[in-house]
């Protein structure tokens, strides 16, 4: 499964760029996470790739098909849950899934049978004939995800599917996506960085319409000056080496530096019996570094 964009741009009303010359290529079965602040251009990119919105300039291809000139070919390959999509309240989960499959051209009988199977897989069989309006927020989201994963589409687009869900419901959806990614490409936009880091095989960081970075976690770490961090549980500690220091709370600081320097500092902390933890920087740190320049000297 492959998605390619070349200098993809979108301007609304000839004003500011919502998306500016975005170029990337991803070819995998797995999860592509697109992250960014609100208004970064995630949904615009999502909507162009899913053939809902025309770009102002540039090209985008899904498995080699042009999203602008060959939308019907692209639509054979994709299934989409847009941002803020809601399960139609007067339908049941089974009716929701089966009607979506019928819009994809499955017969009534096929769609009901596949619908039942997928709802059973997601643990929704007990509520398959309940009205959607009676389901919890997490269940409604699962019903929407069920609609697209029940289809044959090898590329699934999910625009912020876990927004507003509690942690356990989010984890449930994550587990589901991990199972699904084995034989599909899932494009997931999210503003939960932890979600993008846990799920994303490739992560794209958008800011003000531009793609700041596009790589796996290891690749993203190489983009920043200090790929290792050390959290010190003491405020009486001072360092004189070249590092970034971030104050987390009254008695906690986080130090960012290179691998060698972090281990030097760790040795001295051990000698002084100061509590600490060492880890590679998280997506949170990378995002702050690239987007917000939140790492202080």
């Amino acid at each position, binding site marked *: 499964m492959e998605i390619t964009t070349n200098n993809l741009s979108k301007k609304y009303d000839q004003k500011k760029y919502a998306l500016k010359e975005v170029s990337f290529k991803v070819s995998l079965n797995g999860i592509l996470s697109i992250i960014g602040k609100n208004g970064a251009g995630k949904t615009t990119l999502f*909507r162009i790739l*899913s*053939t*809902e*919105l*025309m770009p102002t300039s540039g090209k985008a291809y899904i498995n080699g098909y042009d999203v602008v000139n060959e*939308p*019907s070919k692209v*639509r*054979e390959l*994709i*299934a*989409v*849950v*847009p*941002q*803020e*999509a*809601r399960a*139609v309240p*007067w*339908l049941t989960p089974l*009716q929701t899934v089966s*009607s*979506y499959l*019928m*819009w*994809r*051209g*499955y*017969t*009534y009988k096929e*769609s009901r049978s596949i619908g039942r199977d997928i709802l059973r897989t997601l643990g929704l069989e007990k509520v398959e004939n309940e*009205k959607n309006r009676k389901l919890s927020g997490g269940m409604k989201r699962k019903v929407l995800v069920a*609609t*697209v994963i029940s289809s*044959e589409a090898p590329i699934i*687009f999910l625009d912020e599917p876990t927004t507003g869900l509690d942690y356990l419901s989010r984890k449930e959806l994550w587990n589901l996506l991990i199972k699904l990614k084995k034989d599909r490409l899932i494009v997931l936009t999210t503003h939960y960085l932890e979600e993008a880091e846990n799920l994303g095989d490739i992560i794209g960081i958008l800011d003000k319409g531009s793609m700041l970075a596009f790589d796996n976690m290891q690749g993203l770490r190489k983009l920043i000056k200090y790929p290792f961090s050390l959290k010190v549980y003491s405020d009486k500690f001072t360092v004189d080496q070249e590092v970034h220091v971030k104050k987390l709370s009254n008695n906690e600081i986080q130090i960012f530096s290179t691998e060698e320097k972090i281990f030097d500092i760790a040795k001295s902390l051990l000698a002084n019996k100061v509590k600490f933890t060492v880890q590679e920087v998280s997506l949170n740190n990378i995002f702050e570094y690239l987007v917000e320049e939140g790492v202080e000297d």
Partner: protein
Amino acid sequence: MKIKRSVSSQLLASVLVNAIYAMINYPVVMINTLLAPLSILAVVTFASHGTLLPIAAEGALIMNMVGNGTSVQGDLSHLKNDMKLQDMVVSSPTSAAIYISGMAISEIVYSIPTLSLLIILNLLYVHASLLGWVEIFLDMMLIFAFSTSLGFLLSTFSSDIVQSWAFSGILSPILSTIPPVYYPITYIPYPYRYLAYLSPTTYAAEIAQYAAGKIYMSSSDLLLTWLVLITFTIVMLFLAIKKSRWREY
């Protein structure tokens, strides 16, 4: 995996979602389609001491078909803006034409109880020849196609349900209450009569009234009336296809 896609299934999906499942879950909505045409039919019949009943019965049928068509606007707008369902359909193998056709059929299915009652009333009180009934049927199909296209066009421009309600509020009187649908156009004095000719429903009503033998028209006037109604419908279909925003720009 390549699957064989069924167009009839794609059409049926819209009918199920927008009509059958909605009717099963909210039976009260069926009263909605019944009330407007029947209430005006009753008022006109009482006010005319029954003399206008046959014309008003045809008028109620026209109003119902217009209402079915323009209802597409509210329903599509709701499914698009509030549910984001249309976005899911846009990026699926269903085309705009199939989606809108399915939704149009769903509106007819939705108003089957009302249509049945109005057809019975028309069979009882409108004494048309077989050719006349064929004319009335084609007339209803044209005005339905016109109003459905108009509804679809407006729905694609509507950004929320409140705007959609406003469109409905404007369309209903302009297309079915103010024009001479429930009575002959001769009841409207000049120069207001010219205004009535701006609405396609005026032509639809004249054709139906002529087919029932309630008004007289020369062959050339009848031909012209059909041509105007057909032109209105084709132009609106063309606009709906060309100007509506199935895919946003």
